[in-house]
């Protein structure tokens, strides 16, 4: 980021390539809308670019980045500017369609349907969490940030964060109980991404 601050455009390209995937996934799971997630991710990169001259390395870059992303996502959720997207794999996908998951080619249709249903079940469970708990779980489970970073992003103490995470996982434990009891069918391949 210091190189970006110094005006190195190639370094910004590096940041874009490195962080677009985690950002889109984090934002997509926060707002549950692929197109909105991409718009928000673009906005995050734009804000990083605009703020490059004022950037001071007082914290890790990921903390700063996800703090911007979390604030944008929370605002988006609270403003209700997003819509629940029920994407269907049967819909024709244009080139500029939002992020999309495709089944692995080696999967049987029944396996794919089961996996899709389970994924949707998980998404709904995460989406049902209060916004701050949702952000905490996503940053902890999927982005694998440490407690200090997440606490700074969510502007709370580490002990408050641990309590937040415990309550969130306790809710998920109850909601995901059907999936926990009935584990995913064993198969050789795993879902592929496009």
């Amino acid at each position, binding site marked *: 980021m210091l190189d970006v601050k110094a005006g190195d455009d190639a370094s*910004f390209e590096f940041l*874009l*390539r490195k962080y*677009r*995937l985690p950002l*889109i*996934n984090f934002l*997509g*799971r926060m707002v549950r809308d*692929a197109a909105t*997630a*991409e718009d928000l*991710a*673009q906005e995050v*990169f*734009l804000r990083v*670019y*605009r703020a490059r001259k004022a950037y001071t390395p007082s914290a890790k870059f990921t903390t700063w980045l996800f703090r911007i992303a979390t604030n944008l996502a929370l605002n988006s959720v609270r403003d209700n500017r997003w819509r629940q997207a029920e994407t269907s794999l049967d819909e024709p996908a244009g*080139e*500029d*369609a*939002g*992020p*999309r*998951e495709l089944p692995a080619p080696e999967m049987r249709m029944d396996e794919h349907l089961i*996996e899709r249903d*389970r*994924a949707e079940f*998980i*998404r709904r469970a*995460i989406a049902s969490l209060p916004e701050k708990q949702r952000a905490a*779980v996503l940053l*902890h*489970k*999927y982005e694998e940030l*440490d*407690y200090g970073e997440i606490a700074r992003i969510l502007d709370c103490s580490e*002990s408050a964060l*641990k*309590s937040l*995470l*415990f309550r969130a*996982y306790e809710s*998920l*434990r109850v909601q*995901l*109980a059907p*999936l*926990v009891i009935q584990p*995913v069918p064993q198969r050789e391949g795993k*879902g592929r*991404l*496009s």
Partner: protein
Amino acid sequence: MTCEEVSAGLIAYLDHRVISAERREMEDHLASCAACQMRAGEFRKVFTVLDELPLLEPSFGFDVRVRERIAAEPRRRWFPAFLPQPRLAFSAALLLAMAIFVAKLPLSNRAAPPAASPVQQGDFNAIQNLGVLENYDIVTNIDALSELAPAASPDAAQPEQPATHDDGGI
């Protein structure tokens, strides 16, 4: 360790982010408390289930759109670099105001003209009492004296002197 204390530290324990002493206490409690043990086991399964959520990939045009938005950002102009910064401008203005104040200060104190120095006053008195100069008009009008050679004094070198000689009708 109580069940509440275990609950507070359970996520960190499952993340392997607790110190060894605390870890031993947790394990001792979990070994003796079926409820906490079951909860820890179910949390582990929840973590595994959450891993099933597939990743989203950005659309093909994502990078292009980001670059377009950045290219549309207004570029920094060169002339602001030459404009004074607010702090610098304030400092310069303050310095200028102080300079004007200091420059005006002696003028205000100059209501009464300063007394001439003793040396200047002495020179003035000497010039005022100088006999030759005092009787200059009389001396220059005496014809007899006009035939004398010009005095070696500096006063003779005055430009009016030759004119006086001409007037004298030599």
